[in-house]
């Protein structure tokens, strides 16, 4: 009895296996020619040669590029709300929501990119200084008289007052308190009242002279987005009548809301995409903006803005190569492993920009020996950041010596930064580092057990605290002894594990290693990221302070509003919101207060660099490194600039200026 053989099935199976093997062995790029370089290899901000496809809704002329029918921006997480009250509150404060709703919002003043200046948006001119009226101070913002919502209704001063009052009365949190600046019931101010003098004039009353943080460059009332009263008024009224007004307001739908920005929100299909359209009534269309050294026209030059959702970066890069999307938005940037794939495709561009953040080593200042500046200084001297970033991390990161990122053009001072880098022991060889650290510790009264001091020894056992001919370095033979005569117990350095962040894990292991060379017993403890957060931000509500149950840790912070960097106060001032290291320095606090009260940007900048000097000297944190943010976009589109702090994602993918190539 002969069994019939299913030849078709066999052939199919063989073909399938063959196809999979071929696919796996193939180069995924379609072209291996050199990619167009981005910001780190030369900016790609030149205009295109010919206009591309034409759209209907785009209001502008597209500069030297053409208009786009649809600008597709790939995202990686759901857009969970269409409500701007929620977006700027803690409930919806989410970067993915920001990518879609951010371009729909307008404020009296805005941040100009790439130069990071505060420039008028809805306001008629530059911000006027406040004037004193009796015991109070009064500021005025005059709105332009050509402002309209996307539905054609005029934007008025009353809309501003409505937004400010609603945010204050509903107790909205996260970004709103900075915008409102009304304080609390117990401590009101600095803004005590806001009123619409006429259709275009908003008057602010302050109970004290406001500094730049409130009235100028910071996230104060001038930068508060204005929401339309004719749309949200009834919603707010209805919410106010409920038992849970705040929750009711942030749960309300924003579908159909008029926009004051370059786009008008369209819809969200949860799990799939979000979509916006061009604002045909955008009041800024046609305006030329000069920021930094770039001048560009404002659009929009695209009719539609789609935000398809991708589950993983691999699929998203395939979609980018296939022309499905024009830019991939991700606050953490794209994986470096995908860079070769993109650079091997002539239709795509990879661009790297500095981030508005830094990775650092922090000390618990309430515990010895971390409370001793000499100890921190000696440990800093031992950390060869260039060696770690260039050799161990193979250029995946670059060393930092000041907190303010180089990409913040408006505030960065290269000369002072170079000086502070020297203070942070940049560029020293290892022997000089060891000698410096030993010298600092010895001068501060630290000792080592008999015959165990680190240093240079010759063949006869003669000791030198510095490198010398015929002497070679020998690491400490025992743990260091503090100035009080007690040996230093093993100190724990907690840092993210290699699975979460190999860069910080490498630095953690390296620091523990070099510390032991001079007898500082540091134990590197790779820890789950969430666990680190739990430990270093443990907060005691009764004492309203951080408990700081750690010795040292390595983490990374973002730095907030780049136009007015208030992070120094938050991280290091006594009682600062993020000061979880118990660092307290009266001189620093005084400088931070002066910074907040500064009357001009120049004065603030001068004080900020004094703060940086103090940090470089006292070393409450040791800045370690940054990685930059890697982004990919299609050459079907072009931007007036691609070199900008935190990348194109930080400006929502630049929907107001993007054109076709």
């Amino acid at each position, binding site marked *: 009895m002969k069994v019939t053989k299913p030849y078709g099935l066999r052939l199919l199976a063989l073909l399938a296996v063959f196809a999979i093997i071929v696919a796996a062995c193939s180069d995924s790029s379609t072209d291996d020619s050199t990619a167009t370089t981005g910001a780190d290899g030369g900016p790609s901000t030149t205009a295109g040669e010919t206009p591309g496809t034409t759209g209907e809704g785009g209001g502008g002329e597209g500069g030297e590029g053409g208009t786009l029918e649809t600008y597709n921006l790939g995202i990686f997480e759901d857009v969970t709300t269409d409500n701007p009250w929620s977006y700027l509150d803690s409930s919806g404060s989410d970067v993915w929501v920001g990518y879609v709703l951010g371009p729909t919002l307008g404020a009296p003043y805005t941040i100009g990119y790439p130069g990071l200046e505060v420039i008028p948006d809805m306001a008629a001119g530059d911000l006027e200084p406040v004037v004193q009226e009796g015991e109070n101070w009064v500021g005025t913002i005059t709105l332009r008289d050509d402002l309209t919502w996307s539905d054609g209704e005029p934007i008025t001063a009353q809309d501003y007052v409505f937004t400010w009052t609603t945010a204050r009365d509903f107790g909205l949190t996260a970004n709103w308190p900075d915008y409102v600046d009304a304080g609390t019931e117990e401590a009101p101010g600095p803004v005590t009242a806001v009123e619409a003098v006429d259709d275009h004039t908003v008057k602010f009353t302050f109970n004290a002279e406001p500094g730049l943080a409130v009235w100028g460059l910071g996230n104060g009332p001038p930068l508060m987005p204005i929401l339309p009263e004719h749309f949200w008024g009834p919603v707010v009224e209805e919410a106010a009548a409920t038992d849970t007004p705040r929750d009711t307001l942030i749960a309300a739908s924003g579908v159909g809301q008029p926009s004051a920005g370059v786009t008008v929100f369209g819809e969200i299909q949860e799990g799939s*995409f979000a979509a916006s359209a061009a604002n045909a009534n955008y009041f800024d269309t046609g305006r030329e903006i000069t920021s930094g050294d770039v001048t560009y026209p404002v659009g929009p030059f695209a009719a539609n803005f789609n935000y398809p959702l991708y589950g993983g970066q691999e699929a998203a890069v395939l979609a980018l190569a296939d022309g499905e999307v024009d830019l991939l938005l991700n606050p953490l940037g794209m994986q470096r492993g995908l860079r070769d794939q993109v650079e091997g495709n002539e239709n795509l561009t990879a661009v790297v920009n500095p981030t508005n953040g830094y990775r650092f080593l922090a000390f618990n200042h309430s515990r010895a020996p971390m409370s001793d500046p000499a100890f921190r200084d000696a440990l800093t001297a031992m950390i060869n950041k260039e060696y770690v970033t260039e050799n161990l991390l193979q250029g995946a990161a670059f060393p930092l010596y000041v907190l303010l990122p180089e990409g913040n053009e408006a505030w960065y001072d290269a000369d002072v930064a170079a000086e502070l880098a020297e203070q942070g022991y940049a560029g020293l060889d290892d022997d000089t580092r060891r000698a410096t650290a030993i010298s600092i510790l010895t001068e501060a009264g630290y000792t080592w057990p008999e015959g165990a001091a680190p240093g240079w020894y010759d063949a006869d056992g003669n000791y030198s605290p510095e490198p010398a001919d015929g002497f070679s370095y020998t690491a400490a033979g025992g743990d260091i002894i503090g100035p009080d005569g007690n040996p230093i117990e093993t100190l724990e350095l907690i840092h993210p594990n290699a699975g979460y962040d190999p860069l910080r894990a490498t630095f953690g292991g390296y620091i523990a290693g070099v510390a032991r060379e001079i007898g500082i017993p540091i134990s590197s403890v790779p820890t789950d990221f969430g666990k680190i957060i739990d430990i270093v931000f443990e907060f005691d509500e009764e004492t309203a302070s951080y408990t700081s149950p750690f010795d040292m840790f390595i983490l990374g912070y973002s730095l907030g509003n780049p136009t007015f960097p208030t992070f120094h106060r938050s991280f290091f001032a006594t009682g600062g919101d993020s000061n979880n290291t118990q660092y307290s320095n009266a001189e620093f606090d005084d400088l931070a207060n002066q910074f907040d009260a500064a009357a001009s940007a120049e004065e603030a900048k001068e004080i900020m660099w004094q703060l940086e000097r103090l940090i470089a000297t006292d070393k409450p944190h040791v800045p370690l490194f940054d990685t930059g943010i890697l982004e990919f976009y299609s050459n079907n589109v072009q931007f007036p600039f691609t070199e900008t702090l935190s990348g194109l994602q930080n400006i929502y993918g630049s929907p107001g200026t993007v054109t076709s190539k």
Partner: protein
Amino acid sequence: MLRFIGRRLVQMFILFILFLSIVWLLLQLMPGDITDTLIGDPNIPLATRLELAERLGLDQPLYVQYWTYITNFFQGEMGVSFSRYPQEVSAVLWEAIPRTIVLVLTGTLLAYWMGFKSGKLIAWGRGGKTEQTFIVGGIFLQTVFYPWFAIVMLWLFGFYFGWFPIGRFIDVNLWQGSGFDATDVFQQLILTSFIAVMVYVGAKVLIKRTAGNLIVQQRLQRIAALLVFAGLVAYWYFNPAREYVWDIVWHTILPVVTLGLVTFGAVMLITRTSMLETLGEDYIMTARAKGLPKRVIRDRHAARNALLPVVTSFVLAMGTVIGGAIITEQIFSWPGMGSLFLQGIVVSDIPLVAGALAITGVLTLFAHLVVDILYTILDPRIRVT
């Protein structure tokens, strides 16, 4: 049987409470919470973080949080999603569950159907090159590193050949401004498909009872299947959402086939082994001796008895839908329970993760019950006590 089912349901209820409690406690052991997402931004004041913790009840003692969760759960409230505040967890899951079930169910059914058929055939024709080819292919598919395989499938059929979309659930350019909601359309598609299957099953039963001749029965069943399928197609053809339904179906094919292929290998190998054991039984020799046709021996005598372990594995696989779907959903950008679960874990959205796991728990418990009941139907030697 009813008493058995009743007793099992009581046991399942107790087990479920235990399961839910353990899940909830394990999730609490995870370091960090949702307020951590606000850390490290100097523009977000500390007060905001504390207020958020208070609003979500995270400042309460653990036992209070636990009791609130459990009591709310059994009153039909799974709580509010922390990361999608103030959306209800049940509403979020309700959107995602059908997508995952369709993805996993279709992929698994396809794999089991293909795997059982081919496993049966290669065991029957043992020793040939076909068997060797299938075994090698099956082992490859069973042992392949799934994320790599899924990406290769996406690259090959989505990007290189361009036959299918590069992942996702729907085409944004088609749906944008269409006025249709993808979830509504998808749920309608599931409903109409379910009705069609039920109509077919009804017709099949009717044909079996009325038509005496086996060959006539088979022909009538084929005609019924064709008519039901044509009816389903006709319904959607004249529906205004026609192109949108097709778009969903088109996006479903590649993830379903990928998921099906990796499951296929295991099913085929299980079936083959089970079938080989059955073919060695005395009653198969008796059937051969009686001169029964090969097809009857293979399909009625051997394959039906070889089906038992395959059915067990199928039903239990259905209970673990989330686990099976996480990688597929991530790679194919499929917005189902797996993706939600992963996002929930990343941001410590405990109500959402606990809700997703609760659903998995319920499905697994019911899967076990179904297996027990199916056993008694498939194997008359097994009786419940």
